[in-house]
C-alpha cells in the first residue's frame, strides 16, 4: 500500500517516439508552446493532490481532510483539491498529469534560495547566473526561440544570453506595485529605511502576492494566451503566482489560491484555442510543506510537493510518481513528504518529449550540474 509505483510500464510506447540522439533541433519550426507557472511561496502538494488512501494522511491533516474528501477522485488513492474544478475536467480528458513527491535538488527551507535553485536549474543556490528557461531557448530553432514573462520584470528563470521580453499591462498588477516601486526609490537614500524596505520587498516578492495571485488568475491566463496564440505568438512563457506560503489559515487561503490557478489554466486553454493541443504547461513550486498541520491551521516549509503537467500534448489522466508514504519513518527528516522524483529530471523528460529533443542533451543544457536523468517516458505526446 505504501509503496505505490506509478511510473514506467504503462507508457512504454513513448520510448519509440524519442528523437534520435544528436539531432540538434527536432523540427525546422516548432508550433509547440511551453508555459511555466511558478508557485512562489511553497505550495502544499499534499492539499493539492491529496493522498487520501494513505493510512497516515488523516492523522496528519486533521480538518484539512474535509477538503481532500470533497475533491474530485483521481484514482483509488488520490483526490484533487475541490477548488480545482476546471483542472479536474482537464484530468478527465487526459490533459492533466500530476506527479507527486517531486522536489528540486534544493533541500533547505528558504524561499529565496529554493526559488533560485528552481529557476536557475543549478544544484545549489546562486551557482548559476542564468535560468533554465533561457537555456531552453538555445535548443529551439532559430526564430522560434521567443519567450515572454507575464510580469513587470524578467524573472531569474528567463534571464540569460537569449533576449526575452516581459509584459504586464498597467491594469494587471495592482497600482500598489507601482507605488511600492516609487516608495523604494524614495527610501533608497535613507540609511534606515532603505534596508528595511529592501527586506520587505524581497520577502513580498518571494512569498507574497505581487500579481494578485488567486483573484487575477483569469485575467492573467487570458493575457498569457493572447501573447502565445497564433503563428506570431510567443513560444515560451513564464507566469508568476504568489501567495502560497500558507503558515496559517491555510484552508481558506489555499482554496482562494487554487481557484485563481484553476481560472488561470481555464483561461489559458480557452484563449489558446487550437494551440492548446500543442501546449505543455508546467506548474511547480520551490518546495513543499510539512506533512502535519501546525498550530495555526497552516503548514510550514517542507520538502517534496506536487508538480502538474497540463495541456493538449500531455499524456494525462493519471497521478504519477513513486509514493513514499506518510508513515513517520517514511517522512523526510521526520516531518516532510520525502522526495522520490527529481523535478529537474521531470522537466528535462517532459521538454525533451515535447520538443522532440534528446533527453541527455536537454538535461545537459537545462540542468548542467545534475546527473544524467532517469528516463521517464510517456509524459507528452510527440
Amino acid at each position, binding site marked *: 500500500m505504501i509503496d505505490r509505483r506509478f511510473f514506467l510500464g504503462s507508457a512504454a510506447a513513448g520510448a519509440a517516439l524519442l528523437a534520435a540522439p544528436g539531432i540538434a533541433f527536432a523540427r525546422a519550426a516548432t508550433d509547440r508552446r511551453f508555459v511555466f507557472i511558478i508557485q512562489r511561496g511553497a505550495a502544499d502538494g499534499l492539499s493539492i493532490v491529496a493522498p487520501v488512501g494513505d493510512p497516515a494522511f488523516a492523522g496528519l491533516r486533521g480538518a484539512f481532510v474535509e477538503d481532500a474528501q470533497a475533491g474530485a477522485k483521481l484514482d483509488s488513492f488520490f483526490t484533487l483539491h475541490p477548488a480545482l474544478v476546471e483542472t479536474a475536467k482537464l484530468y478527465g480528458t487526459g490533459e492533466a498529469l500530476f506527479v507527486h513527491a517531486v522536489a528540486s535538488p534544493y533541500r533547505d527551507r528558504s524561499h529565496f534560495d529554493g526559488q533560485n535553485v528552481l529557476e536557475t536549474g543549478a544544484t545549489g543556490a546562486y551557482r548559476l547566473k542564468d535560468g533554465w528557461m533561457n537555456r531552453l531557448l538555445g535548443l529551439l530553432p532559430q526564430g522560434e526561440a521567443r519567450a515572454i514573462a507575464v510580469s513587470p520584470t524578467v524573472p531569474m528563470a528567463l534571464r540569460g544570453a537569449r533576449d526575452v521580453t516581459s509584459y504586464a499591462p498597467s491594469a494587471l498588477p495592482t497600482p*500598489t506595485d507601482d*507605488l*511600492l516601486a*516609487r516608495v523604494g526609490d524614495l527610501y533608497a*537614500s535613507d540609511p*534606515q*529605511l532603505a534596508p*528595511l524596505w529592501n527586506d*520587505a520587498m524581497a520577502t513580498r516578492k518571494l512569498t507574497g502576492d505581487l500579481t494578485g495571485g488567486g483573484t487575477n488568475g483569469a485575467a492573467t491566463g487570458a493575457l498569457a494566451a493572447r501573447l502565445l496564440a497564433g503563428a506570431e505568438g510567443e513560444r515560451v512563457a513564464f507566469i508568476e503566482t504568489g501567495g502560497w506560503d500558507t503558515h496559517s489559515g491555510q484552508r481558506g487561503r489555499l482554496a482562494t489560491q487554487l481557484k485563481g490557478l484553476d481560472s488561470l489554466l481555464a483561461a489559458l486553454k480557452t484563449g489558446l484555442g487550437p494551440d492548446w493541443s500543442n501546449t505543455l504547461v508546467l506548474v511547480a513550486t520551490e518546495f513543499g510543506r510539512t506533512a502535519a498541520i501546525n498550530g495555526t491551521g497552516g503548514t510550514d516549509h517542507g520538502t517534496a510537493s506536487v508538480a502538474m503537467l497540463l495541456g493538449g500534448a500531455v499524456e494525462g489522466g493519471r497521478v504519477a510518481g513513486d509514493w513514499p508514504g506518510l508513515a513517520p519513518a517514511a517522512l523526510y527528516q521526520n516531518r516532510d513528504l520525502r522526495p522520490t522524483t527529481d523535478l529537474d529530471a521531470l522537466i528535462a523528460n517532459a521538454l525533451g518529449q515535447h520538443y522532440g529533443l534528446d533527453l541527455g542533451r536537454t538535461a545537459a543544457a537545462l540542468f548542467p550540474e545534475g546527473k544524467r536523468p532517469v528516463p521517464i517516458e510517456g509524459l507528452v505526446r510527440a
Partner: protein
Amino acid sequence: MDAQTIALNRFGLGARPDEAAPADSKAWLRAQLGGFDPRPAAIAAAPTRKEIATQLADYIEETRGAKAGRQAQAQPAAAAPQPRPAAMTDMAEARGGTADKMLNDRLAGLPQSTQQYLRKDIRDHYLACIAARTDAALVTPAPFVERLVHFWANHFAVSADKLQVIGLAGLLEFEAIRPHVLGRFEDLLLAVEQHPAMLLYLDQAQSAGPDSRLGALAAARGRKLGLNENLAREIMELHTLGVRTGYTQADVVEFARALTGWTVDGLRRGAVGRALGFDDGDAGAFRFAEAMHQPGARTILGKSYDQTGVEQAKAVLHDLAGSPATARHIATKLARHFAADDPPPALVDRLAAAYLRSGGDLPTLYRLLIDAPEVWNPASPKFRTPWDWSVAALRAVGTKQLQGQAIAGLMTQLGQPVWRPGSPAGYDDIEASWAGPDALVRRVEAAQRIANRAGLVDPRALAPKVLPDMSRATSLALARAESPAQGLALLLASPEFLRR
C-alpha cells in the same frame, strides 16, 4: 528639520492644511498649556461610564446565574467568565473566518441579552470611545496636550483584551487622564488607580484581605478569598518607581494589603453586593469596600502606614508620587518620548530635578521640554508610532471625523490597536519596535488607502503646509507621481512623514 516642523510634529500631532502655521513655535506650545479642554464635544459624546458599567454588571449577573444553575460555585467579585468578545476577533476573522464559529460555540446557552452584549454592545462602546479619541485628536486646538494625553494613557496602560476592560478602557483616558494632564502627577496617579478600568484590568477589584470581614466570612464557609498583588506591583514597577528601584516582594505584598477594599461599585448584585455596601445605581464608580480591607498597619519601603480605610493606600500613593525614583522614571519616559530613544542624561536630570522641586507639577515639566535644546535637535527625529503616523496622516488630508471601526481597523493593521497593548507596560516608545520591513509596507498600503479616500487633494499644494521642509527627493517623487492620489500616498509614506 526646522523649528516649525518640530513644533508641529514632535510636540504636536502633525499639521492641518486648514490651520495657519505657528509664527512663534515656543509661544504656540506654551499657549496650549493654558487652553486645553479636557472634555471637548467628541469626548462628551462618548458613552457614559454608568451605561457601560451597568451593562457589564448585567452581564456578570446573567453569566453567574447561568453558571449557578449548573453548579453552586462562588467567585470573587467581578471575576466573570471570559468568552472572547466580538471586538477582539477582527484578526482571527480576517485570517480564517473561524472566529465567528468559536464565539457562537462559547455563547451557546447564554441568555439572549448576554449574547447581544458580547456580540455587539461591548464592541460598540469600544469603537465609540476610539472614535471620540480620534476625533478629539484630529480637530484639537492643543495638539501638544493631546499628545501628552496619549502619552499618559500609554504610561497607565490598560489592555482591552480583558473583557471587563474593553468598554471602559477609553474612559480611563477620558475621565482620569484628560482632567489631570495639566495637573500634579499625584492627582493623575490617584485618579487612574481609582478608575474602574484599572481596578478591573489589574485584578484589584476582587482583591480581599484574608482577615477582612469578607475574608473571614468566606473562610468560615471553607472558601478562600485571595489577595491580588497585580495592581500593587504594577503601580510600583510601571506607574511610579520603575523596575528594580529597590522595592522588594514584601513591599509589594504590604502595598497590596493596603489596597484591599479598592473596588468598583455595582458590579456585584444580590447578597454579596449588599455586604460590600454596593450601590447598584452607581455602577462603575470607585468604591472603598471596608468589608474587603485587610485591617492593620502596613510597612512599605521602611515606612509604617497606620491609616485606616481608604486613606492607607492613598498615603502610600502620595509617598510613591514624591519619590526620587518616580521623578527619574517619569523624567526618563518624557525625555524618551520627546528627545530621543536614548534619552539625553542631562535632560533626564533636569526633568527629574524639576519634578521634585515642583512637587510633581506636570506643566513645569512640559515647559522645561519646550525650552530644552535637546528636544529641538533636528538630527534625532523620533520614528512615528502607528498611532502618531495615522493621526498625522488623517490631519494632513483634512479629516475631521472618522468612524470608530475605520480607525480601529487601521490601528490593528498597523500593529498598534487602540488601548490594546496586551500588557500593562503599554506600547514601546522606541523606533526599533515600529520600524520593521513588514510594518513599513503596511504603512505604505495604509497611505495609499488614506490617499485614495482623500478626494481631490493636490499633493503639490498640500506638501508645503504639512511638511514645511520637505526633501528634494520627496518633492520630486510627488511631482512625478502618476496621479494626485499616488502623490499624496507618497507624501504620507515619505521618510520625513514617517518621523516627527
